[in-house]
């Protein structure tokens, strides 16, 4: 067994494991910022619009959120660039063979990235320099670019799950490439919706968590109420729709990626109908430590209470993904998603009946927790779908092993990257917190910190 594992490891290219770790880490980091890039402009649009209609509090929020977005979008832009480089530096085997199949959506993503950056520049620097209406409208192309850009990137991921738009000939060459078919593969639309809603959940719950934390510290003014409510509305709509989209997306797995489904469901053997297993681990080929709900596994996985779920033992051992990580990540996502959905439904029902839970401390605590919870759900979802697709990078076509490169020293690169990203995180937190502190102290415009004003202050 050990000898076998060693033999297997020896066949792996030097770049495989560090590439995996680095890709997972950099993608996991960037995706949080990407959520803000996609969802934040819409939220800023709402408060800015309210502000232009005479709501002073809303206008202040718009100005502040714009400054926050300047920081978040900048580090989002650079961490996105890291991913572009990594496609080639870490996965040369994939790009060499399939670059012309999967590349087109990336080209269109570049287009939306351009749009986003242009209008971001106009918006951030347009305060007081453009007509207010035109200035506000700069947010619209940003939001639209967020939608289109998400579709493009997710379409590549969907293609990796359900590859199409090419043929492999007898010599193993990729032929008959149809880039449009690859871009508009049948998984793209639903997967895009899933991610788009996730972006609104993450950005919405995180921003409202900031104001809920303020409320906990006794800051219960109009500013904090509005700052909580606007993102919370966005997050609520997304949280209610998300389980529906997720479910529709999931029931196709039985046909498209049965091994991933089996790992999600912790199904060692084929069962009809299959139970839903809550929690649990696969230990020596036996599912253990779970709570079983009969028939619901079939419903969740296949959309019917009596369809079978194929078991892992029907796949060759070399085609089975790491079961426990996939299963736990999947259930974490589902668990948090369900919790958030129920919570927002409860909140709005009670608010409709005239009771505002935001006045209670326990709900404020929950709202604070909802931010990180949404992020955990997002990460868990990505882990579930990516680890669940293993050992394939392009499902059933190319193994991840064959995508990795052979350059030594990638562990050093990964180590450096951990350090740099840690510093970036610290820098961002530091800057955002000092921004908030300055705002609380009544300063609105942040002076140029190396300008004469700041220097004379330092000298005093």
């Amino acid at each position: 067994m050990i000898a076998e594992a060693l033999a297997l490891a020896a066949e792996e290219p030097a770049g495989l494991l560090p590439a995996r770790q680095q890709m997972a880490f950099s993608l996991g980091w960037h995706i949080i910022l990407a959520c803000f890039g996609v969802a934040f402009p819409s939220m800023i649009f709402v408060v800015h619009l309210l502000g232009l209609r005479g709501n002073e509090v809303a206008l202040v929020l718009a100005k502040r959120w714009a400054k926050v977005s300047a920081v978040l979008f900048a580090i989002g832009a650079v961490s996105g660039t890291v991913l572009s480089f990594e496609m080639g530096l870490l996965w040369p085997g994939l790009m060499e063979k399939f670059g012309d199949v999967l590349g087109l959506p990336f080209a269109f993503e570049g287009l939306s990235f351009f749009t986003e950056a242009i209008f971001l520049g106009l918006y951030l620097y347009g305060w007081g320099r453009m007509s207010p209406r035109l200035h506000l409208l700069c947010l619209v192309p940003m939001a639209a670019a967020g939608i289109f850009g998400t579709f493009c990137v997710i379409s590549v991921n969907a293609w990796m799950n359900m590859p199409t738009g090419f043929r492999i000939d007898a010599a193993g060459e990729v032929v008959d490439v149809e880039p449009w078919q690859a871009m508009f593969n049948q998984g793209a639309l639903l997967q895009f919706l899933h991610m788009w809603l996730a972006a609104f959940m993450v950005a919405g719950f995180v921003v409202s968590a900031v104001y809920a934390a303020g409320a906990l510290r006794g800051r219960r003014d109009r500013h904090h109420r509005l700052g909580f409510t606007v993102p919370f509305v966005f997050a609520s709509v997304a949280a209610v729709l998300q389980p529906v989209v997720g479910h529709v997306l999931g029931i196709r797995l039985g046909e498209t990626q049965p091994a991933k489904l089996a790992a999600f469901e912790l199904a060692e053997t084929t069962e009809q109908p299959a139970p839903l297993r809550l929690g649990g681990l696969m230990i020596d080929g036996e599912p253990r430590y779970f709570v079983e709900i009969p028939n619901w596994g079939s419903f969740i996985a296949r959309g019917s209470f009596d369809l079978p779920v194929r078991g892992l033992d029907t796949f060759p051992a070399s085609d089975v993904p790491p079961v426990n990580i996939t299963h736990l990540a999947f259930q974490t996502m589902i668990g948090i998603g369900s919790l958030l959905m129920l919570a927002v439904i409860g909140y709005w029902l009670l608010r409709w009946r005239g009771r505002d839970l935001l006045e209670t401390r326990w709900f404020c605590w929950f709202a604070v927790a909802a931010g990180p919870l949404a992020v955990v759900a997002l990460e868990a979802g990505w882990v579930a779908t990516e680890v669940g697709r293993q050992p394939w990078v392009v499902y059933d076509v190319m193994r991840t092993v064959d995508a990795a490169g052979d350059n030594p020293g990638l562990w050093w690169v990964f180590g450096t990257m951990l350090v740099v990203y840690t510093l970036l995180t610290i820098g961002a937190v530091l800057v955002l917190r000092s921004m908030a502190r300055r705002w609380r102290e009544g300063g609105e415009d942040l002076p140029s910190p190396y300008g004469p004003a700041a220097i004379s202050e330092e000298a005093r």
Partner: protein
Amino acid sequence: MSLEVAVAAALFVGVLAYALFGGADFGSGFFDLTAGGARRGAELRTLIDHSIGPVWEVNHVWLIYCLVVWWTAFPESFAAVMTTLIVPLLLALLGIVLRGASFAFRKYSATLSQARTFGVVFATSSIITPFFLGTVAGAIASGRVPAGGYGDRWSSWLNPTSVFGGIIAVGTCAFLAGVFLCADAVRGGKPALASALRVRTIGVGLATGLVVFIALIPIEIDAPTLADGLERQAAPLIVCSFLAGLATLWLLWKERFALARLPALIAVATVISGWGVGQYPWLLVDEVRLADAGGAEATLQALLVAVAIAGVVVVPPLALLFRLTQTERWSR
């Protein structure tokens, strides 16, 4: 024109735009670093902040554009370059990450000491990034990237052509930045700052021009294919670059800063085009010809569609952004 050449031209437009506009942003790092202490440099740093703030992210997207068009249109050569030049590419990437992040952080720093720290990171990373990207260009142009990839990880970019490529990249970026900053300073009502910048920009311009023409000698020995192209089909471009460079210096001398921007852009654009035209018809010099490097034909066609759409969707707002930021109202 074959499909491959058309797509390569579109790709090269991206390279040019990145070199000119992204380059000018990177180049401001040189002036930021040499601006002096916190008090003396405050005015110039504020100007730099104001000057590149609204546009650096857009200018940065050209790099993404180049990468995606490259890997989509010429996937095998992309993988070959990525596996061979992994070291300078990673170092450039590090610079890109640090530059963008620390620029944003500096702008919103709470204290002077924070701003100083982020400022040093911003300025140094702005200088190293073009250097490493220049070495990558030198490696491709001197035929050191084998078609199958995994060329020598060190000598591929530590060689005369690459090192000169790196220095020229740093110099041209700083030169462009200097010219633009001079014009911005005048428009922002800071003539004293402009005349201080003017001297340094002329210095950078002379030094860079000198390096470009000195570099022709080692390139002759180290990169014969490129040298051959530079002496033949690209020769008019090099002459043009020389003349435009002279014109820029003269206009700077005469303090006609706004006008100097045009020949400065031409001077740099023709140097970069000189490289591109000089190594034609090779994509990876001596290894892969452009005509043989293309991916699937349907993809190349689709890419041209994407580029055409980008031209319609992106160029007008981009022009608007550039025009607005160059107006007096946006310069205060």
